[in-house]
């Protein structure tokens, strides 16, 4: 399989989805088929990547000296597998969610969803900066109709904010690309960086770094560029789950992986002293995001600030630059993806089925929706970083990296945030299983009333994954192996 197919399948799927708008079953069959085909196309490339022979495809020249090129290297594969794999689950969940709520404009929704995932896979597998920017921008556009899905004043406002932030960020990336073209640098991603020839030209390097880092920082919601993300929570919950917890925001975090590891490289970054700047922003975001999450009563807002914080786990990990921190950062992409999508799925199931959006309304909901809230409880334990969940492994590596790099304060930041994770999630679980009847239900024992299976099964699958892949990170999908590969390639002396 070539990486091109993995990008083209979801993009092309938008067409039959749009054309079958009058027949919902057919339309959703196309969505699911596209998700399965994409995941299959991505995962079929895994063995080649792990064997050190990543699949490649090169198309025509898109800008002078830079072709549209894809390469399934370890970092890209990790992100592509995460986005495409979770798309399958999300599609099933979307069907349950959208049908339960009888949402309008579902054809546009599924088509834009396919385009968004296709763009995210394109970002993941892009082999050079030009291709990366191309799909990064397409991702912005494809997500806009999803943010504004409800077409009310709030979502139109959120859409404007979203575009203002992300298009500006795109411009920063485009400016950097134009600059690199003007300098005549071949901007093909390379583990360890491709800018070595510019060593010593401090002004140019800092300028490029500022543009690139600012460009990816917006999607990675690094403070103070984060406020579009909580606003974007007006979108339907499956969008918040896959795009604003996994695909779009991880494209930003993944952008940091590319910029730090594959554009500049550790040697140059250490030489410039740029690491401390990134680390400082990330550490502040990580802590402040967690603290803000504590005070949020709307459940999705709480999860959004939690996402803001967790994205900076990854960003900080790339800035710590010790091999272990890189393993942790990469694995955290997968771990946070699987765990956070579960929490959003649960929030969406509660919204769609019980019409409750605020934490303060959730007293006793666990007795009514036991499966959903059990999954929520599992994912909360995972988010707090308790063993044996996935996030325990990633946080362990991140912390170990901080120690290796003699940056113990960052270990403290990670630990503090872990405690805060527990503090903003566990109370939800306690409330849900309080021994009180849910509003409108006389007795708790007789009131089991779960959401549609189309929503409950996906959220249980992802909760299960967060546990199983924590118990045995090497068991399936190779996330840990890929993370180790990336770390070895990037931080090799």
């Amino acid at each position, binding site marked *: 399989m070539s990486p091109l197919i993995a990008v083209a399948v979801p993009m092309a799927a938008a067409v039959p989805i749009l054309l079958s708008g009058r027949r919902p079953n057919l339309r959703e069959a196309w969505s699911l088929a596209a998700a399965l085909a994409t995941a299959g196309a991505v995962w079929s490339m895994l063995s080649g990547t792990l064997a050190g022979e990543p699949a490649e495809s090169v198309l*025509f*020249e*898109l*800008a*002078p000296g830079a072709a549209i090129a894809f390469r399934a290297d370890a970092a890209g594969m990790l992100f592509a597998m995460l986005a495409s794999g979770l798309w399958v689950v999300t599609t099933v969940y979307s069907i349950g969610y959208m049908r339960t709520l009888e949402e309008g404009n579902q054809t546009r929704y599924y088509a834009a969803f396919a385009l968004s995932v296709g763009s995210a896979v394109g970002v993941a597998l892009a082999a050079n900066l030009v291709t990366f*920017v*191309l799909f990064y*921008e*397409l991702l*912005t*556009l494809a997500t806009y*109709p999803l943010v*504004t899905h409800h*077409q009310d004043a709030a*979502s*139109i406002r959120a*859409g*404007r904010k979203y*575009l*203002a932030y992300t*298009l*500006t960020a*795109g*411009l920063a990336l*485009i*400016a950097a*690309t*134009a*600059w690199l*073209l*003007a300098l005549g640098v071949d901007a093909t991603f390379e583990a360890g960086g491709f800018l070595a020839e510019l060593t010593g030209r401090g002004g140019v390097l800092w300028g490029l770094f500022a543009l690139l880092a600012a460009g990816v920082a917006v999607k990675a919601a690094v403070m103070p560029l984060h406020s579009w993300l909580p606003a974007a929570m007006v979108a339907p919950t499956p969008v918040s789950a896959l795009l604003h917890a996994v695909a779009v925001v991880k494209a930003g975090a993944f952008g940091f992986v590319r910029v730090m590891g594959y554009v500049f490289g550790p040697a140059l970054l250490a030489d410039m002293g740029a690491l401390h700047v990134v680390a400082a922003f990330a550490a502040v975001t990580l802590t402040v995001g967690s603290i803000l999450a504590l005070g949020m009563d709307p459940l999705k807002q709480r999860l959004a600030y939690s996402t803001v914080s967790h994205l900076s786990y990854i960003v900080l990990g790339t800035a710590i630059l010790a091999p272990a921190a890189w393993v942790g950062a990469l694995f955290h992409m997968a771990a946070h993806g699987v765990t956070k999508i579960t929490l959003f799925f649960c929030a969406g199931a509660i919204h769609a089925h019980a019409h409750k959006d605020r934490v303060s309304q959730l007293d006793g909901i666990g007795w009514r929706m036991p499966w959903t809230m059990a999954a929520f409880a599992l994912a909360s334990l995972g988010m707090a970083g308790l063993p044996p969940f996935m996030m325990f492994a990633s946080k362990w590596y991140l912390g170990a990296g901080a120690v290796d790099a003699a940056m113990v304060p960052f270990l403290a930041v990670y630990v503090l945030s872990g405690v805060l994770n527990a503090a903003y999630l566990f109370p939800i679980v306690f409330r849900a299983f309080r021994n009180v009847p849910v509003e409108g239900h006389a007795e708790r024992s007789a009131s089991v009333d779960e959401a549609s299976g189309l929503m409950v099964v996906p959220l249980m699958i992802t909760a299960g994954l967060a546990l199983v892949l924590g118990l045995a990170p090497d068991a399936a999908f190779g996330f840990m192996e890929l993370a180790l590969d990336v770390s070895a390639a990037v931080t090799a002396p």
Partner: protein
Amino acid sequence: MTPHLPILIILPLLLGAFVVTLCGLWRPRSAFPLAILAVGASAAASIASLVETARAGAVRYALGGWAPPVGIEYVVDGVSAFVATVVAAVALLVLTATRRMADREMGDRPGLFYGAVLMMLTGLLGIVVTGDLFNVFVFLEISSLATYALIFMGGGRAMIAAFRYLIVGTLGGALYLLGVGYLYFSTGTLNMADTAARLPEILDSPAVLAGAALIFAGLGVKTALVPLHWWLPDAYNYAPSPVTALMAPIATKVAAYAMLRMFLTVFPAGYLAEATPVATVLLVVGLGGAVAGGAAAFAQSDLRRILAYSSIAQVGLIAAGIGLASPLAAAAALFHVMTHAVMKAALFLAAYSVRYRTGEVDIDRMAGLGRAMPWTMLAFTVAAVSMVGVPPTAGFFSKLYLAQAGLAEGLWGVALVVLVSGLLTAAYMVRILERVYLRDAPDGGSAAEAADPPADMLAPALVLASATLVLGLANVPIVTRLLVPAVGP
């Protein structure tokens, strides 16, 4: 046939203008097909010359057999063949698409209308292929006179707009002519190549400087560079729809081409950029216009005015590319001439399809059109995305090349303004698209019952919109094989 290519671009239009007018009086229904035939022939000749110049270099044609510099010379080189192809091809698509609107708005005299259209195109393409400074003036006046007549046909307030345009156009033409007069006075020749050969000896002469200043002032009016732009929004607004749809994509671009020609052929390399402030002024005025035009577009609610101010902004970018005076920047400016012509034509065709179906031009009354006219709005959206400059559309690459050219000269601000102008564009385009897609049509409003226009109106808009994608993806061969060789080292 090859040596005659330059004249073959003009001849069908010039002859066609007379034939169409006369046949239109006799058989009104024959006017449209004859006009299409004429423009089609001219487009074919333009494409043939594009192929020929890419293969074997410039084609020169001495009019009436009088050898230059005494006689008038027509020259088709890579640059003029490219611009001629863009102008003729876009004109062909726009004329096809606007037939129904022309029937509706000027149904009683199609012969006069299409005759004037062909005359205007004669003037525009004449400016592109001529190698003679005075001849540029002649064609400038031909196109202007035809345009006055066309705007005038709108009746009512269009007459005032036409009168204003007449005054401004005459002023621009007069300034240009005065400038050419200074050069003629100094060099004794009107032929561009000959002027270029004689100028280096007398570059210190203040007459040359005055000539250059006046020529660019005159062309600046015609290009609608800020602050010489104020005639344009009214002219676009009140002219009959088919006229605006035809003028907006190509007319100002041809004047910009004439400016580029001065840089490339007439004045010695480096003179305008180093010995005179012309290049700097163009750069500053162009970038200022790009920002001011974008900001002004945001303040409008009439779609035609939004697009008119957007044109002012986009020509500003072209002028900035010319003012940068490097080969890469010239190639970028030419690429943007093409990009802007294609996307602005698509936008105006979509806008006028809306007007054709609903009578609306105010964006506040366009709610729900995304559902009512999906294909029209698809064309509009793709062109708008290109105007914003999102990859992989052609608009993105225009801006990338311009920014790259600016950075290569060490001019930071250029790259910054070029890119930020995209944000302004995004602001006014999102304003439109929000209404079209995210607001529901009010009950009983005309938007509620609208539908996509007939295929002959819709197809050209869709072709132009998809061209923004195709040309974007094919930007590397266009720039490296056609434009960079054409503008020379």
